[in-house]
Structures are given as structure tokens and as C-alpha cells.
């Protein structure tokens, strides 16, 4: 039987940030004794939702109800007092202290720490939830999964009734995920309400009692406990994939242009990647022809960025990478640049530019020391400035002067400057990493137009994006990354959205295969 009043409920909650609606009229109810899985891609509004539940932010509109009463959660402490404990993605334990000492940290300073009692209580709970962590163990000797278990118990001690887990599986091994799942089930059995945030569909279905899907800040739908019991698993998956990626919800991205306008790709293979492995990706194999845009889709953090960093030569990798018939392995970043490989980083302020240096020098960072801008090692100021004005005019970079520190420009102008830098010289392959991330609509459009234009001019293009609509609007073919592997390559077409969406969620490419696999099992 379902209790009539949920422990926590969101009623038409809306939260806005400058330029975005992070949560748009979301209504959800969380019941005692249930694992409620919240699914959504990056940017779907999950983090905002959590920070409101944890008392860090307050909704602009709507209300949070606790035991049916509207409550204004004013601080993290307030949320804890009302029974809501949160475990964040990043570990928050002191590594050099023991588990018990970490758990004692909240004790008021005038009290004597009660080590023995805390250790005993931890041992009891650990047994109850099936955890094997001794309270005397030092935290830095524990695995990430074990540290997380400690944090979950701590959150439970402090909150007690509702446990919010923010993407708890993102750093765990498959076995760790199983253990966590079992722990969540046992806690739910004791009456705790668990809010389990994830972007892995299979986990949500495996551990959840009900599933809600967030997409673009809205609640795109959900599956209740009744349906969970009634429908077979493949059908459930089908429905959730539809909610996450499908066209069931009106497409909020008005910019997604039809893929018909794509230029025809050439025939010559420009980039050939085979059996490429690195720290965060394995056995990657794909090729890109001249004039072709090869999209790489996937939820953020599935190995896309390390993969393209390895292609650019920034991190080590094993395997074969050929650019226009020349082997790239063993070549430095600068040599690869010289051979026509360009990498437009997603980390514009971090590694892309030096904020305090003028635009003119930032435009030449990758040609530093080369003639005609440096002669015998000395800077030729006129040549540098002339180059900067020409590039800034051509790429419409708006800045007071060529000598303005680049950090003072807007994100859109910094991105245009980066494009101006990377498209200089004679590029043959250009890799874009999340090229429109964080830009406003006009600059998104300008950047996408530039990507098409350069591909049309014959450049081979690799486009990494977590925005599925963007990948589909620009690419000829789409490779999907999941947990460091390229799980499939899909030719762009009318059914590409569904097929890519299924691959991103860890499902076989089409529903038919899925059913066959299920039947065989």
C-alpha cells in the first residue's frame, strides 16, 4: 500500500538562472520506502533540483512540501534537520582520518568525541546495509565505492528519512554499482525514501521502484510502480528512451536544422583511428573522410574528451591514428598541429586561452615563435597586430582592440577567436569539442554555420557534443560513446535520433535486437 502523503514533494517548482530556465514547473513526489530514479542528460536540470532539495538554492516559483506541508528550505542545515541527507558526486571525507573520526566531525567542540559509541553504531548499520567497512580504517585506504558507502551512512545519520544520491554510480566499478544497488534496496526496505539520480537507464530500471525523466528542465514523464510491475522490461526501456531522447516531447531546440542541408562528403579517408585505447577509453575505431562531419555523441564523461585529447596528442594512447596516410602516434602536439590537425578545446578559459594576454597573442599561441611574427626569436609587433586585426575582422571577433586581454571578451567572442586561431594555416582535420557549450543562441548559430562551411571546404571534421540535436543537425555519421567505448556508429537519417538515443542509454541500437536478446537470455 502506498502511503497517502509523500515525504517530500515538489509542486510546480521553477528555478531560473540568467538566460536559462533550469527547472520548469516540475512536480514530483517521493515516497517512503521507495527508490525513485531520476534520469536525465547533462543540463536536464538534475543538479538544480538537488541543490533545492539540499537547501542550497530556493525555487523561484512553486513549493517544496515535506509531509504535505510547504517548507522554505533555508539552508543545508535546515534540510538535514527536516530529514533530507545528500551525497554529492565528489567524495567529501578527510582522507587522513579514520571512518569513525570522519563521522565524529560534526560533534560540538565542547563535547568529548564518543569514538567507541560512533564506531559501534557504524558497525551495526554497516551490518544492516550489507557493508564491509571497519570504522577504524583510514579513508585513504578505502576504494571509492567504500568511501561512498561511508558517506551514505553519514548522510543517513544526519538526515534519516530522505537520501539524495547525486549520480552515485559515476565513479564506481560495475561491481561497486551492484553493491550500491543492493544497499539502496535494503535502505528502502527500512523505510528510507531514496532519490537516485543517474543518467544510466539500465541502473534506473534495475534499482528503481519508479522512474522520472528530466529533459531540458522539464519533467518529460515517468513510470510508476504499478507499470513497473505490469510491463515487460524491453517495453519499459522503450518508453524511457522515448522520454529521454525521442520526439515524444516537443523539441525545445528550435535550432536543430534538418540534416538534409549537409554538404556531400568526399571520398578520401582523412582520419583513420583503429584500436585506440587510453586511460578513459578503449578499442576505439572509426574513420572520417575529407569533407565529412563525424559526430561523437554520448552523455558527458563517457570518454569523449580524453579521446579527442589523445587525438590532439595531449594525453598518451595506444593504437593506430593515421592522418592522410601519415602515422600520428609518437608525434608531439606541435607536430600534429603542423600536419594539419586542429583541436578546438571545450575548455576555452582553462587551456584554450591565456585570459590576461592580449587577443593578438592568444591568436598566435600555437604558432609561437614562427615567422613572420617572430624573427630571430624577437616579436614583430606590427606583424602580430596586423594578423590579429585581419583574423578578428574575418571571424567577427568583437573586441575594443587587438591588445585587449582576451579574458575580457564574451564567451561567444572568445570562441570565435579560438576558431580563428585553429582554422588558420592549412588544416586538414578539425576536432571540435562541445563547440557551442555555454554560448548564446546567436553565437551557437554562427559557430554551427562555421562548422558546416569549413567541412564544405573539404576539411574532415570530428564534432564532439553532448547535445544530441546538435550532433544530428550537423553530422553525416554519429559514433556513440558509452563508458569509454564507441558502442555504435549510426548513419544520419530519419531514425537516427532513436538509434543514437538507445545507444547512449546503453541499449542495443534497435528495439528488435533488444527483444531478440531478451528472448535468448
Amino acid at each position, binding site marked *: 500500500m502506498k502511503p497517502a502523503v509523500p515525504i517530500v514533494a515538489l509542486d510546480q517548482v521553477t528555478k531560473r538562472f540568467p538566460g536559462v530556465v533550469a527547472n520548469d514547473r516540475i512536480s514530483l513526489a517521493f515516497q517512503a520506502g521507495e527508490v525513485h530514479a531520476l534520469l536525465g542528460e547533462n543540463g536536464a536540470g538534475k543538479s538544480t533540483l538537488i541543490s533545492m532539495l539540499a537547501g542550497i538554492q530556493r525555487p523561484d516559483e512553486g513549493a517544496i512540501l515535506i509531509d504535505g506541508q510547504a517548507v522554505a528550505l533555508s539552508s543545508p542545515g535546515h534540510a538535514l534537520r527536516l530529514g533530507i541527507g545528500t551525497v554529492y558526486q565528489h567524495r567529501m571525507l578527510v582522507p587522513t582520518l579514520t571512518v569513525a573520526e570522519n563521522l565524529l566531525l560534526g560533534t560540538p567542540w565542547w563535547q568529548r568525541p564518543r569514538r567507541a559509541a560512533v564506531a559501534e553504531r557504524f558497525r551495526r548499520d554497516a551490518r544492516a546495509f550489507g557493508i564491509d567497512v571497519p570504522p577504524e580504517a583510514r579513508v585513504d585506504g578505502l576504494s571509492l565505492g567504500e568511501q561512498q558507502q561511508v558517506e551514505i551512512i553519514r548522510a543517513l545519520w544526519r538526515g534519516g528519512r530522505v537520501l539524495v544520491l547525486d549520480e552515485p554510480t559515476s565513479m564506481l566499478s560495475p561491481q561497486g554499482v551492484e553493491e550500491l544497488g543492493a544497499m539502496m534496496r535494503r535502505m528502502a526496505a527500512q523505510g528510507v525514501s531514496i532519490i537516485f539520480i543517474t543518467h544510466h537507464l539500465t541502473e534506473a530500471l534495475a534499482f528503481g521502484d519508479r522512474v522520472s525523466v528530466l529533459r531540458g528542465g522539464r519533467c518529460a514523464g515517468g513510470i510508476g510502480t504499478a507499470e513497473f510491475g505490469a510491463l515487460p522490461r524491453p517495453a519499459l526501456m522503450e518508453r524511457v528512451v522515448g522520454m529521454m531522447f525521442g520526439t515524444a516531447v516537443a523539441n525545445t531546440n528550435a535550432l536543430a536544422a534538418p540534416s538534409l542541408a549537409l554538404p556531400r562528403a568526399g571520398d578520401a579517408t582523412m582520419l583513420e583511428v583503429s584500436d585506440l585505447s587510453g586511460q578513459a577509453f578503449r578499442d576505439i575505431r572509426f574513420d572520417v573522410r575529407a569533407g565529412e562531419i563525424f559526430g561523437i555523441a554520448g552523455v558527458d564523461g563517457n570518454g569523449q574528451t580524453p579521446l579527442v585529447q589523445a587525438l590532439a*596528442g*595531449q594525453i598518451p594512447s595506444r593504437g593506430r591514428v593515421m592522418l592522410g596516410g601519415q602515422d600520428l602516434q609518437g608525434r*608531439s*602536439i*606541435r607536430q600534429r*598541429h603542423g600536419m594539419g590537425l586542429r*583541436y578546438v*578545446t571545450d*575548455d576555452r578559459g*582553462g*587551456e*584554450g*586561452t*591565456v*585570459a*590576461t*594576454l592580449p587577443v593578438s*597573442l592568444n591568436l598566435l*599561441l*600555437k604558432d*609561437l*615563435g614562427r615567422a613572420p611574427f*617572430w624573427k630571430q*626569436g*624577437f*616579436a614583430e609587433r606590427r606583424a602580430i597586430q596586423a594578423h590579429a586585426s585581419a583574423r578578428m575582422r574575418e571571424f567577427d571577433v568583437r573586441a575594443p582592440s587587438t*591588445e585587449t*586581454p582576451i579574458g575580457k571578451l564574451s564567451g561567444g567572442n572568445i570562441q570565435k577567436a579560438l576558431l580563428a586561431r585553429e582554422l588558420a594555416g592549412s588544416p586538414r582535420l578539425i576536432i571540435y569539442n562541445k563547440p557551442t557549450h555555454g554560448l548564446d543562441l546567436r553565437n551557437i548559430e554562427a559557430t554551427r554555420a562555421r562548422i558546416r562551411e569549413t567541412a564544405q571546404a573539404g576539411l574532415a571534421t570530428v564534432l564532439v557534443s553532448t547535445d544530441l540535436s546538435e550532433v544530428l543537425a550537423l553530422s553525416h555519421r554519429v559514433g556513440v560513446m558509452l563508458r569509454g567505448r564507441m558502442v555504435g556508429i549510426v548513419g544520419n537519417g530519419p531514425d537516427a535520433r532513436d538509434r543514437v538515443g538507445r545507444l547512449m542509454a546503453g541499449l542495443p541500437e534497435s528495439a528488435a535486437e533488444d527483444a531478440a536478446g531478451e528472448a535468448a537470455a
Partner: protein
Amino acid sequence: MSEAAGITPVSRLPPRSRVPVPPFVGTTLVPIVLALVAGGLVLAAIGTDPLAYYAYVLERGLLRLRGLQATLVHMIPLLILGAALIVSFRSGLWNLGIDGQYMLGMLTAGALAPHLVQAMPLAPALGLSALAGGVAGTLWALPPAWLRARHGTNEVISGLMMSLIATSLVAALVKLWLRDPASLEPQTLTLAVGDRLPMIPGTDVNVGLVLALLVVLGVHAMMTRTAAGLRFRVLGLNPAAARHAGFGGPVLAMSVLCLSGFLGGLAGSVELIGALGKMQASWNPAYGFAVVPLVFLSRFNGLALILLAFAFSVLEIGGASAATRLDVPQDFTLVLVGFVLIFLALAEYLAQRRAET
């Protein structure tokens, strides 16, 4: 390492043609005046007339010809060491092993110069001795540089440790093998006055001053106008960007620290062949800790460093005279430098706050 972030490196300032005068007054002159006032209050508190003290310092360190010449000679190692630190600090690396490099540079010149001047004409003999000191400084900077570049070991700690070793090593070497048998003090063979760097005509200041000024100006030009200097600066401002652009590898960090070490060693050898003529086993002026604040005050700008090193030398030379005459401890100059640093940092903080609001 982030403590340096509070002090704006020169590259963050607008180009020189557009520097308006009032901010300079606000962020540099006013703090210095305030520091002098605060120092005056301390002097008054210990029963000395501040005006008399400052007048005495100025007279002995600046206005009398002999004092001025002593001031200029005193500047020489400070300038070269300052140049060494500018190379390092502007590249975001903290070569605090500078004292050890200075000591080893001086010892190497002290061991070589008396023999070289016997074997060859003066100019190449002194030139070689100076360079050998630089090489010794480079070698002494190498272990911390390598550890930093290859393994990310904090170069501050390893540099300071290397300085500690250098102090004992120098004393041991002088006492055991390089000792002048004719001297009671444990010290190296003395370079005859005629075999040292020549004086600038008409003065008692050796040409080491010219060399030191050239080193500072050269470093300044390198950092601001050359490709190598820009690489160093990018490394200092944003190491991730240096790596992304393909030049931020271990070699760059090694070059920075080795160049800095070379200049550190050069400071020692130039002081030996210019002013001291010999190295005593107990010699350890610990210039590094005087120069580090000066370099921060100069905001890593070579031209500003020259002015500051001069002002500091005036204080030191004048202060030394005042110490005996007015019974103010010699270390009072450090109190003044401390005040200047505090007030400059305050001014910087206030200026930034105003810029933000």
C-alpha cells in the same frame, strides 16, 4: 604558489603607453610614504628620532660619494639575483634555491679565478670564472628542476633544501680542499686586487654593475619581447594553455629553472671576481630573502627592480652606518621593506575592489 597571484604581474598591466599617472601614485607612491611613516612610528617607539634616522640614512647611503659608491657595489648581486627570480617567478616557478646557487657560483669562481689569472690574460680568465660560476649554479638548480619537470615535486621545498646543503658543502670544501694555506681564516685563495674586475673609470665601482644592469635589462627584454619569454610567461599565467599549445612540456620548466640557476650562480661569481676576491667558509649573506620581496614589489618588472634594488641598497648601506651611530639595529631595513610590502598589498587589494564595484 598562489600567494603570488595577489600581486599583479606586469603582463596584467595595460601597455605602457596607456598607463595613467594617478594609479601609479595610488598603488606605489602612497604605500611607500605610508611605510616610511609607519617605520618612523616604530623608530619613535624605540626612542630614536625618525627624521634624524632617515636623514642619516640618506646622507650616508646616497648623498656622500663614498656612500653612493658602496650602495652601487652592494646593488650588483641584488640585481643579478633579482633577474634570476624574475625569470623564474614570471614563469610560475619558484626558484627559492637561489642562495645555494649563489654560494656554489661564488665558490666555483673562488676556486678557479686565482689559477686562471695565472694561466691566461685577465679578460678571458675572469670571463671564464664568471661563466663557470653560472654553470655551477645551473647544476645546483638541476635536481629541483628535474624533480619539478618530471615528477611535479614542489621546487620551493627542494630548492630550499639544496640551499641548506650548499651552505654546509661550501664550508666543507673551503676547509678541506680549497683553503688558502697562508690564511688563518678558512677561505679560498685571494684574487689580487689588480686581477679583479676593473673599476668604472673615475669611481670605486667595478664594472660588475654594468654587467648586472645589462643582465636585468636583457632579462626584461627577453621576457617582454621574445618568443622564449612569451613561452615562459604563458607557462606562468596558464600552464594548461602552454600544454594545449604544445610547448608546455618538461623541457620548458627545466629551461626556466636552469636559466634562473645560471643567473643565481653568476651573481655569486661576479661578486667574487668584482668585490670580494675570496670566499670565506662562513660567508652566507642570504640575499635571496632580501631579493624575493624586492622582486614582488617590482611586480616582476626589470626596470622597476633596478629602482627598488637601488633604494634598498641605500637603506642597507645608510642603515649600516646608522646602526653604529644611532643604535638602531641593522635589521631595521627589513622592517621598512616589510611595511612597504604590506602597504603595497593593501593598495593593490583596495584598487582591485574598486575596479570590481
